[in-house]
């Protein structure tokens, strides 16, 4: 009996009228956990009942505590007929099971009904008393922390990164059971919601057990997904990275925040780029296609895989470090090879962990679904994923890498066909955080790799490249080889040196296919997939060049399958990595050069493209430092060479090189126009409209080149469904799909125009084909405002007086640079280098930023004023510090609050963001994972404002429920928020619609940095306040 769950029902408010005669409600509450149910008294004739119940106590196994949600049902008492349900609240009590997370759940939670939506709110208190269980064979895994965040959470330090954990559970979908024919839609929806709650609880527990087995205490980058397989069942699967985390106890000693560390990035470019004198040339490396489809047992077609971009030599890798590196590599490799899958769901890494990046690896496989016969042994699904993971592993190996980072898995299902996809970035990791890592040697080695460019250096032997790639010496350190283009699925490493700003790059593609059944269908799809991937890749490459950039981060390729078409959407953030060579331009070549009008047409297009490139370079501030080209003793005297992509290989490259390019010395990427397709492609290339002035966009966490984020953040979700006409060609479809995405982006920019200058970060597009001739696009992102004036100032400052700035802002960075510049030999151990390796305690606290001193003073005065207000009103709430931390237009809201009395306490503000951090704020506590699943159904679609009205309300309701649950945990924000599933189905003829939404994120408490600094400047006045926020509840 290792746990006691206690719940108390306090009150309700805003209840719906259930009795038409009296316009009132006689409400009572059922509290259910497992098979035990308690009831409150009926509170007669009120829409705001005060139950104030006793503590309901459930004595349960901790295994159940992990699996089951607490289920609260609010009902209307009816003397004569059955009691009517008003709605339900599911409470995930997992956050209470971990000592470091939340301690109590207390607050107003929306009462939710799958037919009517939110119907009032209920105030509850939930606590758990957990007894220690030392049983070695226990089935529970209480205490393992879960994080959706794909980096080491902000207030923790990674002691050890153990590696990949995965699990999946299957069940029958209640909606497809025989009983569904006789029960109400409400009962069916609730059965489904409850089942998924149970399944995800079970899944989390099982993963927790695996983590404990590995000796870890946390899962980072936890990604849970649902596959609604229809007839054949319901699969809930999850992957994550097991870690041992240690909480950083002292306040200011946490790892540097991106917004803190980023200012140093700009100025870092200059000292590093300056000594770079080795000039090299590059051409494009085309993707490798190891396309071999094979049929496996049952039926499955596996479609292997694209390996993207650069890889290359370690041949001349490092002078003294050579053998050391090899040794180290061997050791790390052996450590990793012991693992089944050396995969990591992380996208951001602790300093020094990520050594080299090879490129993107991905694998897809087409499967035919069949009924899951035995839910307890989900072997088939396991085997499917195993197959794919093995493939990924071997791809990584062929890239000379022993690990895959930024790893993720997804599915797309249409009827009985299912595409399983996995992708990640092949990489070489340091053994520092791994179990058997040789710690001493590793430190010595660490110094050699410069943080700004090290990860770009190719991990593979130059002589054994599996495909032709153009390698040059790194433009930063000039010592190691780098590829000309780099594609990755991870976030831009904070220490990477980047020139200019980045931007969102998308490749969109539609392919029609014939309607078919069973194996024929699966075969057709698997035949189409390689082409789809190839074209997406080409589009990405073209668009990247068009923007004058050379690397993609956060690449995510989504392929969605419908009955008559396949949809591909690749999103990534393009940047110009200083370490990589400058990309050449794009050159168009006609097939029949004799025709004059045709030539004219081509030269027009060429001009357009060149103009666009120039414009883009200006827009994204890409002015790489000019390197002296021909240096005596240039290590690789390469002939000018242009590799061509696109259709025909008949022409020799000599013809091409005749035409000189406006983009000067750099070699160009050649587009050959030999058919109308290519013309269309080029048009499509040019139709991407630039972001309006003041806007930037990316799908990664942060945008290089932008600092000074203000506290203004706006998370949003936008969904569009587009109906197509029948009989469209591939071209037509492409255009429609592309326009759909473009228009959606335009709408977003317009909506958020009041936040300019701002950046849309973590733009996450999800496409689906809900039914024939429908395309659904859903976007979740966050808009962050930044301070333009300050950016300019900083830029100037960094240009003029780099050293001073570097000392005040981030001293260890400079020390590192100096070291590099001085070319210290690898064997000497500099103490500074050592200190940089660990997370630098108190690196930030003592540095005083004078520019913001005035701000701080004024905010301190503000705070005093606020305190005065609170005292005058005589109400001191525990939540007050959180309210203060909220970013509302401060001055005004305060004055409003003081002279106007809103009846009742106003709702605490909860921020939501898909990012792992909140600009200008410090996360001081993680309260647990939020993982919620909702179904909403209506049979009065028109009355609820049509499909748009229906979905608008539902999404708003989901947000409201997430916020309420976070607030009840004592939090004031959700980070790493994502909407993983949004399945929308409609039947306008029947006036019906149904939608399923799954969201997740990490509930946290954050404190404004201005308030934190306050503690160090004015400890006596502010300690009470921060500690208040620190303890949370």
């Amino acid at each position, binding site marked *: 009996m290792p746990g006691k769950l206690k719940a108390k029902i306090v009150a309700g*408010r*805003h209840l719906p009228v259930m009795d038409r005669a009296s316009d009132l409600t006689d409400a009572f509450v059922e509290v259910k956990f497992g098979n035990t149910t308690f009831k409150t008294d009926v509170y007669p004739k009120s829409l705001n009942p005060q139950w104030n119940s006793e503590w309901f106590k459930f004595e349960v196994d901790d295994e159940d505590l992990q699996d089951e949600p607490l289920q609260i049902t609010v009902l209307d008492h009816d003397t004569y007929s059955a009691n009517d349900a008003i709605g339900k609240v599911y409470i995930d009590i997992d956050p209470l099971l971990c000592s470091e997370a939340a301690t109590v759940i207390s607050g*107003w939670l929306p009462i939710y009904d799958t037919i009517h939506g*939110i119907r009032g*709110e209920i105030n509850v208190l939930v606590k758990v008393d957990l007894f220690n269980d030392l049983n070695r064979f226990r089935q529970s895994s209480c205490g393992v922390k879960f994080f959706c965040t794909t980096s080491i959470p902000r207030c923790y330090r990674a002691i050890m990164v153990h590696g990949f954990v995965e699990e999946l559970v299957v069940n029958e979908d209640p909606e497809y059971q025989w009983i569904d024919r006789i029960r109400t839609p409400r009962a069916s929806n609730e059965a489904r919601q409850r089942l998924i709650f149970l399944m995800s609880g079970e899944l989390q527990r099982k993963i927790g057990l695996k983590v404990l087995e590995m000796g870890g205490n946390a899962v980072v980058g936890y990604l849970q997904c649902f596959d609604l397989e229809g007839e054949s069942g319901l699969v809930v699967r999850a992957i994550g990275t097991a870690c041992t985390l240690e909480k950083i106890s002292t306040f200011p000693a946490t790892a540097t925040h991106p917004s803190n560390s980023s200012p140093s990035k700009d100025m870092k470019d200059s000292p590093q780029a300056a000594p770079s004198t080795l000039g090299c040339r590059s051409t494009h490396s085309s993707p490798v296609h190891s396309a071999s489809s094979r049929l496996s047992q049952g039926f499955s077609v596996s479609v292997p895989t694209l390996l993207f971009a650069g890889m290359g030599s370690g041949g001349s890798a490092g002078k003294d470090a050579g053998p050391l590196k090899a040794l180290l590599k061997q050791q790390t490799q052996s450590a990793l090879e012991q693992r089944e899958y050396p995969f990591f769901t992380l996208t951001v890494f602790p300093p020094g962990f990520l050594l080299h990046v090879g490129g993107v690896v991905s694998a897809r496989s087409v499967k035919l679904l069949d009924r899951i016969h035995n839910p307890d042994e989900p072997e088939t699904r396991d085997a499917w994923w195993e197959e794919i993971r093995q493939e990924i592993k071997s791809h990584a190996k062929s890239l000379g890498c022993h690990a895959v980072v930024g790893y993720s898995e997804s599915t797309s299902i249409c009827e009985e066909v299912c595409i399983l996809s996995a992708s990640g970035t092949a990489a070489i990791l340091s053994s520092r955080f791994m179990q058997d890592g040789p710690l001493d040697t590793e430190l010595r080695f660490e110094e050699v790799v410069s943080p700004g460019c090290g990860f770009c250096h190719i991990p593979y032997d130059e002589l054994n490249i599996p495909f032709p790639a153009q390698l040059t010496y790194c433009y930063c350190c000039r010592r190691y080889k780098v590829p000309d283009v780099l594609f990755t699925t991870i976030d831009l490493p904070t220490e990477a040196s980047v020139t200019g700003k980045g931007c969102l790059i998308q490749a969109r593609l539609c392919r029609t296919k014939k309607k078919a059944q069973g194996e024929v269908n699966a075969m057709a799809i698997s035949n189409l997939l390689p082409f789809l991937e190839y074209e997406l890749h080409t589009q990405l490459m073209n668009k990247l060049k068009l923007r004058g950039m050379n690397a993609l981060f956060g690449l995510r390729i989504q392929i969605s399958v419908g009955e008559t078409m396949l949809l591909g959407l690749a999103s990534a953030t393009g940047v110009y990595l200083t370490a990589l060579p400058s990309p050449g331009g794009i050159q168009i070549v006609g097939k029949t050069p004799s025709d004059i009008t045709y030539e004219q047409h081509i030269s027009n297009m060429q001009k357009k493209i060149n103009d666009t490139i120039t414009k883009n370079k200006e827009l994204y501030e890409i002015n790489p430092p000019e390197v002296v080209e021909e240096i005596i003793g240039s290590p690789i005297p390469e002939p000018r060479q242009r590799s061509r992509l696109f259709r025909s290989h008949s022409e020799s490259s000599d013809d091409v090189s005749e035409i000189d390019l406006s983009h000067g010395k750099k070699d160009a990427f050649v587009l050959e126009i030999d058919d109308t397709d290519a013309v269309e492609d080029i048009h499509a290339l040019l139709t991407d409209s630039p972001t*309006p*002035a003041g806007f930037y966009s990316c799908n990664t966490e942060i945008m290089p080149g932008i600092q000074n984020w203000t506290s203004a953040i*706006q*998370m*949003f*979700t*936008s*969904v*569009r*469904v*587009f*109906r*197509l*006409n029948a009989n469209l060609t591939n071209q037509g479809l492409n255009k*429609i799909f592309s326009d759909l995405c473009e*228009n959606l982006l*335009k*709408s*977003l*920019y*317009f*909506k958020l*125009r009041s936040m300019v200058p701002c950046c849309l970060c973590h733009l996450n597009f999800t496409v689906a084909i809900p039914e024939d001739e429908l395309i*659904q696009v859903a976007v979740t992102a966050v808009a962050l405002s930044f301070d333009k004036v300050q950016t300019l100032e900083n830029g100037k400052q960094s240009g003029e007086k780099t050293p001073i700035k570097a000392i005040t802002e981030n001293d260890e960075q400079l020390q590192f640079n100096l070291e590099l510049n001085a070319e210290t030999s690898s064997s000497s151990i500099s103490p500074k280098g050592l200190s940089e390796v660990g997370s630098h305690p108190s690196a930030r606290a003592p540095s005083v930023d004078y520019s913001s001193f005035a701000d701080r003073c004024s905010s301190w005065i503000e705070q005093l004023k606020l305190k005065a207000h609170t005292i005058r009103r005589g109400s001191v709430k525990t939540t007050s510090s959180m309210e203060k931390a909220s970013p*509302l237009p401060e001055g*005004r*809201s305060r004055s*409003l*609050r003081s002279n*106007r*009395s*809103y*009846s*009742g306490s*106003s*709702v605490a*503000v*909860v*921020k*939501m963001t898909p990012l792992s951090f909140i600009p200008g704020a410090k996360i001081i506590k993680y309260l647990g994972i939020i993982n919620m699943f909702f179904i909403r159904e209506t049979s009065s679609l028109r009355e609820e*404002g049509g*499909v*748009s*009205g229906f*979905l*608008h*309300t539902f*999404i*708003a*309701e989901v*947000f*409201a429920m997430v*916020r*309420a649950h976070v607030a009840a945990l004592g939090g004031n924000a959700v980070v790493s928020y994502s909407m993983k599933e949004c399945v*929308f189905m409609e039947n306008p003829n029947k006036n019906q619609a149904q939608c399923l939404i799954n969201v997740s994120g990490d509930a946290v408490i954050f404190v404004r940095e201005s308030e934190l600094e306050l503690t160090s400047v004015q400890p006596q006045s502010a300690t009470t306040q921060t500690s208040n926020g620190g303890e949370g509840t």
Partner: protein
Amino acid sequence: MSVELDVFVGNTTIMDKEVYQLWLNGYTVNDAVKVRIEGGVMEECEASAEVLLSDTMDQYRTFQMCERLLHHPAKLANQLLFQIPPDRQAMLIERYYAFDDLFVREVLGKKLSKGTKKDLDDVSTKTGITLKSCRRQFDNFKRVFKVVEELKGPLVENIRQHFLLPDQLARDYAAIVFFANNRFETGKKKLQYLTFQDFAFCAGQLINNWTLGAVDNMMEDMDVDLDKEFLQDLKDLKILITDKDLLDQHKSLVCTALRGKTNVYNEMEANFKNLSRGLVNIAAKLINAKDVRDFFIDLVEKFIEPCRSDKWTSIDMNLYLTHYTNSAHILDTFKHHAVWTRYMGVIKSCILRLYHD
């Protein structure tokens, strides 16, 4: 090919003030888009008409979803569905409850009944305000009326607390409620020159001085109804015109005080008895509900119009009313000083407000 579904939901609900106003004004989505295009927002933000349409529809939907909450503004602060910063909430409420002066003049003093609501299309045609907007404004009046009707305590304060309105708007609503409750006639042709603010000012005077709440604020229903006892007492003032001696004495006192101080002395002297009879008769009749309704007509007919035809200035008016009020206290046989002060204080300020030069 068509966009079947198009929604945008922000964690903080995004609301455009301009679109909100268009929605409040009862524009259809298409009309609103036209207005916005003319407003030049497209060039400013590099947007297309399509984007504008999508944005407008989305905003309209948001407002419609919020409207339910705006009917009970206190709910807006503690609902969970929309996260709206407090200053935005205040803006939403204030604008929702704002009304057109043109419109309110049409319904001021009318019973806030279904019948009146049915006639709103006429009001809409007459004023050029969309029917939708008329309905919203009318429903606001009615809603405030219904809530406040049942409440104890000062009227303005009740409105402010229940509807979270700024002070001035709460006062205006108090005037509307007060007029509707007492059914003051404001629509006659002779009263057309008066603005809503003229009436609102008078309402304020009446509420503050002539209602039960003006004397004792622990009473129920105090601010909406006139103090019956006071109205009864007003009948006693009749002595000022029925007793001939008193009337003459009053006249001579006023004339002495005003001699040489005004350009319209002669006209004043000639008209004194008529004017005085007019004002005292109004007082004496106020006990009848029907005459209360005609209060403003009577003031205009019996006092303001004669003065205006004699070309009095506001200064003349002020001077006259001051001395007229004060002189009565010197009269030996006149005993009703308290009632007189309470009556004339309001009458004087109302007349001065209603008298447009």
